[in-house]
């Protein structure tokens, strides 16, 4: 009944050789827009099917996706657009300042106040109780708003309110409330009330009762002042922009009289504020409004305000007032450097007050130590110096330095100078600075802080080449002497952590630039360990320690050197908090993957890396996110790929065994390990040129065994399936027949477990297409697998087909039949005298059976059964159609909701047509059409698939021609 056509693969291959030029591999890239080269035939026609060879790729136009995108990725287009937009935006924003003086605009390299804000708030905290003493007027005050310049303090008849016992958080909330009520008062046109709020708030700044909190208080209250300044400015601005908005670069002449009068009114009102501090702050807050009045207003006001600050007795309050004035000055008139300098010189001039009686009394009263008190100054002084140092000429900085030196070489000032000035400047004078640090007066200000600041600069800029070693030695000498006792350490733990970190970073940096690397760094690490271990001090310093690691990693890219530092791993051990530890390991791994170019077998590296990877792996638990797992797995895989023992395959295998034991929780790693082992087996095969010795044969069997016992531990069924198949192929290639058999059998064995839907990228999708792909692939492999001597003929094929039959396919799907259809070419190929492909040194069925008629008839029987099954199915579909026709009418007449996308009739006929057509194709390609029955069947199928016209004409026409010519040939 049925016979397969005899094939001459060689001849067919010759005939089907592509005539056109093949794809040029030189510029071939899978992700490039597809270049269509007309290949008449699919390359490497493995299954020997030429029938469907006029494949779609030949006539396809350029890839629709790439043609639509016109070669440019839309994301990168957006990115490019935003890049070109961004400068334009900043440009328009900065034009306001540009007008002032083109060359002195504050650039983006000026660290803005906003970035300091948070730091100060976080740093200066207190647990003491705070109080807000507000002397708020009643609303009566607003009547004297108008034009009259009643001194504000005179018309206040309100109540005094004192809020006591506030915690720091309450205090901040209160201030924020005030900020809100300021905005509300302003919005409801109660300008006097708004002013009163601002005055009362700035008055709070003269209160130094909880001095540790003062810097934070300053930050909170100056926020309110900023709000106020903005409100006033905007108000006057809108008054002038009546017909059309005022240009950014307006002059006094553009301002109308009403606006000027209002502005003047504000200044008169503020000038009559009784207390010094509020008057200063509020006037500074609206400094910018001077622009509405006259050209030189700001220029004259700044020096005056600067001088007025001298009237503030408390040095801390004065320092912060100066900082505020500098800040406003930098914002409004960055070109007026003189008053900045003036401020700093005044600050220096009054600095002796710090040791004065009133300050000392206050400290005793509040039980604050001098060193702690001094650190309260640093934000203010740092800010002032930053303003001064910004784009300042070298001589000015030198002058500043000299002045500080003259002033008894105060440690606090020195510290601020080092922090504020350009790192290059400091680095160039590093020796000087070390000298100054050495003989500076240590009044309460610990020296290691100074080294910390110096280190900070040196970490950014390199000192002159010739001095490096001297600096390193000098600094090291001092620092080792400054081993402060434990008590002191605990007391300044904030400070000490930071310092220590900077000091360490510096030394690591220094040792690098002075090229003495490993030994010094090791010493530094040892030192850090020594300092941080007692009392578990490292627990508070994780961020700093992490940066130390990062710094080291940027310099050490040779991991054998890195790991040979004996202190490195103990250093790592200090990270005892899991999350931090993993973070650190991760950063090490990232650097490793990035910079390790050569494969390695260095036991030092391997041990250390295994340890690190194990740490990462052990952090995985049930709560770990998928993403996290994936990235960890990627890092570990990166490491595994870098390991190679060269020709020492056994060592490699044992490494894999160890790795498997270590990383058992991360599936991607296991998959990688199986691939590695498979690759190892193939490598062995390559080395032995295909013929294994007894020893290598045993080794590849061991590899197979490794895979065989590893695969079942994977949870993803498809990775198991594909790995079974792959490992089976590898085993086959290595002549391990029974192993290959076992792999394939195992694959068939788990087929029924394949769920009908799997989750792909978080979405549930039908697994059918994956399964079909796998089965087709599997069938292709089965061609070369020799039958097991103890089992029957075509044991695996039958097993597979049985599984397919028993598998619960989706309803209304032809997947099963399609598997049958695709099994037919395999059977056809198996019946050939010489197989299309074979594996060297493995005898396939062709040799085993040698074309035995019994074998052939067995195949034929199988084919017959399959075709029978297929035809049954076709018939069933046809029956559906007959049966459903009246139902179909009924559905439409009753207008009942229908759950089918297509009317059932169309659906089943379409399916029928498609199936018939594919069977027809297979018969045409592989069947012997001289057999009458078969040709009759083919004709019937042809008619069937054209009956409903669901066939693509183009394809069917090409089939038609093909069938004619093949008939002709035969």
């Amino acid at each position: 009944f049925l016979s397969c056509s005899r094939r001459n693969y060689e001849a067919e291959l010759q005939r089907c050789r592509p005539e056109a030029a093949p794809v040029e591999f030189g510029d071939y890239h899978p992700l490039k827009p597809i270049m269509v080269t007309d290949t008449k035939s699919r390359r490497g026609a493995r299954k020997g099917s030429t029938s469907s060879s006029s494949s779609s790729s030949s006539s396809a136009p350029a890839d629709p996706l790439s043609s639509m995108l016109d070669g440019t990725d839309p994301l990168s287009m957006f990115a490019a657009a935003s890049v070109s937009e961004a400068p334009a935006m900043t440009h328009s924003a900065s034009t306001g300042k540009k007008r002032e003086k083109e060359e002195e605009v504050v650039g983006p390299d000026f660290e803005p106040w906003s970035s300091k804000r948070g730091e100060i708030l976080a740093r200066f905290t207190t647990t003491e109780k705070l109080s807000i003493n507000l002397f708020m007027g009643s609303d009566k005050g607003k009547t004297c708003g108008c034009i009259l310049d009643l001194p504000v303090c005179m018309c206040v008849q309100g109540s005094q309110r004192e809020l006591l016992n506030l915690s720091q958080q309450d205090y901040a909330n209160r201030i924020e409330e005030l900020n809100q009520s300021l905005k509300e008062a302003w919005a409801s046109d109660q300008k006097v009330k708004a002013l009163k709020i601002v005055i009362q708030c700035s008055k709070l700044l003269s209160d130094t009762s909880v001095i540790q909190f003062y810097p934070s208080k300053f930050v909170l209250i100056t926020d309110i002042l900023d709000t106020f300044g903005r409100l006033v400015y905007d108000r006057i601005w809108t008054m002038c922009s009546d017909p059309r908005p005022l240009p950014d670069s307006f002059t006094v002449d553009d301002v109308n009289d009403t606006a000027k009068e209002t502005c003047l009114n504000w200044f008169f009102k503020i000038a009559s504020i009784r207390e010094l501090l509020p008057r200063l702050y509020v006037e500074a807050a609206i400094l910018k409004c001077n622009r509405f009045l006259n050209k030189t207003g700001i220029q004259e006001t700044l020096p005056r305000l600067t001088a007025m600050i001298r009237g503030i007795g408390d040095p801390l309050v004065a320092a912060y007032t100066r900082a505020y004035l500098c800040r406003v000055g930098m914002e409004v008139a960055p070109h007026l450097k003189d008053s900045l300098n003036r401020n700093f010189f005044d600050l220096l001039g009054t600095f002796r007050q710090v040791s004065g009686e009133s300050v000392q009394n206050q400290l005793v009263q509040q039980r604050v130590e001098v060193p702690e008190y001094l650190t309260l100054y640093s934000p203010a002084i740092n800010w002032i110096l930053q303003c001064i140092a910004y784009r300042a000429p070298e001589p000015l900085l030198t002058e500043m330095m000299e002045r500080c030196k003259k002033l008894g070489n105060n440690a606090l000032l020195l510290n601020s100078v080092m922090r504020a000035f350009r790192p290059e400047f400091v680095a160039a004078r590093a020796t000087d600075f070390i000298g100054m640090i050495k003989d500076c007066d240590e009044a309460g200000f610990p020296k290691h802080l100074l080294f910390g600041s110096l280190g900070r600069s040196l970490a950014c800029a390199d000192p002159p080449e010739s001095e490096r070693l001297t600096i390193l030695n000098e600094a090291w000498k001092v620092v080792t002497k400054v081993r402060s006792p434990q008590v002191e350490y605990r007391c300044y733990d904030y400070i000490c952590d930071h310092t220590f970190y900077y000091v360490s970073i510096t030394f690591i940096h220094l040792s690098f630039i002075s090229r003495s690397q490993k030994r010094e760094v090791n010493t530094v690490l040892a030192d850090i360990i020594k300092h941080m271990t007692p009392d578990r001090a490292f627990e508070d310093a994780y961020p700093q320690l992490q940066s130390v690691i990062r710094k080291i990693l940027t310099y050490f890219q040779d991991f054998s050197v890195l790991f040979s530092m004996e202190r490195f791993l103990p250093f790592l051990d200090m990270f005892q908090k899991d999350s931090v530890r993993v973070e650190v390991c991760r950063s090490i791994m990232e650097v490793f993957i990035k910079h390790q170019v050569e494969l390695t077998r260095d036991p030092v590296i391997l041990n250390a890396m295994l340890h690190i990877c194990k740490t990462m792996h052990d952090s995985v638990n049930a709560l770990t996110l998928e993403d996290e797992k994936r990235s960890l797995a990627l890092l570990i895989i990166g490491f595994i790929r870098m390991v190679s023992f060269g020709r020492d395959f056994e060592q490699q295998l044992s490494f894999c065994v160890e790795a498997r034991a270590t990383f058992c929780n991360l599936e991607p790693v296991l998959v990688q390990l199986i691939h590695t082992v498979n690759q190892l087996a193939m490598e062995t095969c390559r080395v032995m040129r295909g013929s294994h010795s007894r020893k290598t044969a045993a080794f590849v069997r061991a590899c197979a065994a490794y895979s065989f016992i590893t695969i079942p531990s994977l949870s993803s069924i498809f990775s198991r399936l594909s790995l079974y198949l792959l490992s089976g192929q590898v085993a086959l290639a290595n002549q391990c027949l029974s192993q290959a058999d076992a792999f394939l059998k195992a694959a068939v064995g788990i087929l029924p477990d394949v769920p009908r839907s799997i989750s792909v990228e978080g979405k549930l999708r039908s697994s059918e297409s994956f399964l079909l792909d796998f089965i087709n692939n599997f069938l292709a492999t089965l061609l070369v697998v020799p039958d097991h001597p103890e089992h029957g003929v075509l044991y695996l094929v039958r097993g597979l087909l049985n599984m397919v039959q028993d598998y619960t396919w989706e309803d209304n799907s032809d997947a099963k039949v399609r598997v049958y259809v695709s099994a037919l070419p395999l059977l056809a190929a198996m019946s050939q005298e010489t197989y299309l492909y074979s594996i060297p040194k493995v005898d396939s069925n062709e040799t085993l059976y040698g074309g035995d008629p019994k074998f052939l008839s067995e195949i034929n029987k199988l084919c017959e059964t399959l075709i029978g099954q297929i035809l049954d199915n076709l018939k069933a579909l046809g029956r559906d159609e007959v049966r459903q026709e009246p139902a179909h009418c009924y559905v439409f007449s009753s207008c009942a909701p229908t759950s089918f996308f297509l009317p059932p009739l169309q659906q089943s006929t379409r399916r029928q047509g498609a199936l018939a057509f594919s069977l027809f194709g297979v018969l045409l390609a592989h069947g012997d059409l001289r057999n009458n029955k078969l040709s009759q069947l083919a004709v019937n199928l042809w008619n069937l698939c054209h009956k409903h016209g669901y066939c693509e004409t183009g394809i069917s026409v090409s089939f038609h021609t093909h069938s004619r010519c093949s008939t002709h040939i035969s």
Partner: protein
Amino acid sequence: MSVTLDIRLKRANKVYHEGEVVAGVILLVCKEALQHHGISLSMEGLVNLQLSSKSVGVFEAFYNSVKPIQLISSNIEVAKAGKVPAGKTEIPFEFPLITKGNKVLYETYHGVFVNIQYTLRCDMKRSLLAKDLSRNCEFIVHCQPQKAKVVPTPVNFTITPDTLQNIRERSSLPKFLIRGHLDATNCVISQPLTGEVVVENSDVAIKSIELQLVRVETCGCAEGYARDATEIQNIQIAEGDVCHGLAIPIYMVFPRLFTCPTLETTNFKVEFEVNIVIVLHDDHLITENFPLKLCRV
């Protein structure tokens, strides 16, 4: 039915000088047409004098108040009886600021016992059933700038325990030396009072240094005259224990309306003084007084 009546002066700062024209508009806003019996506008400049109860006794102060002195007065009829159309109506007006005879227009001044004030008053007469409407508007007169040039003459001062008067126990005084100068005591009213003060040394911590601006008003009357000094404003220039040897600026803006060029007439006088007040930590007050002569240039 709502009507609003307003007077809008042309100058935003409302400042005029003698001989100038006070110009502006009367603004009427009503929703419906408005019947009225005439709108009139008057301008008046007055000096109000009041005797303080301190110098002449409560009874006299109440009854014997001095008659106000009229400096300028004029009246015009803006509109005859008729109708104002609905919506916004602006009626412009002008008053020349010229005195009759040899009267002088003194500068606007708001004090305690002496008040010099210029007002515009707009009245709208209406029928018996509706209330008359009226609106006042103050404008400010600055006197003619002084012809003679003001040459600033700095005034130096030194304060030590020995320079003090008015103390009980000189022996209990702490030691201190405060030096300084005012850049001028004949000041231009539109410019701030400036100078410097230096705390050279002080045994007791300083709590505060303040500038106290004082007005001295003298009113003549049948029984003689009353002279009263009252504070206008107090400006703190130093707070807390200031750094010794460092010059602290003296800076005070003269408040508008509450100060005027020093004025001396037959009936009343307005003069100004400034006190430098040093408050010691034990709340001792040290005051140094400087009479000022204000003028306008």
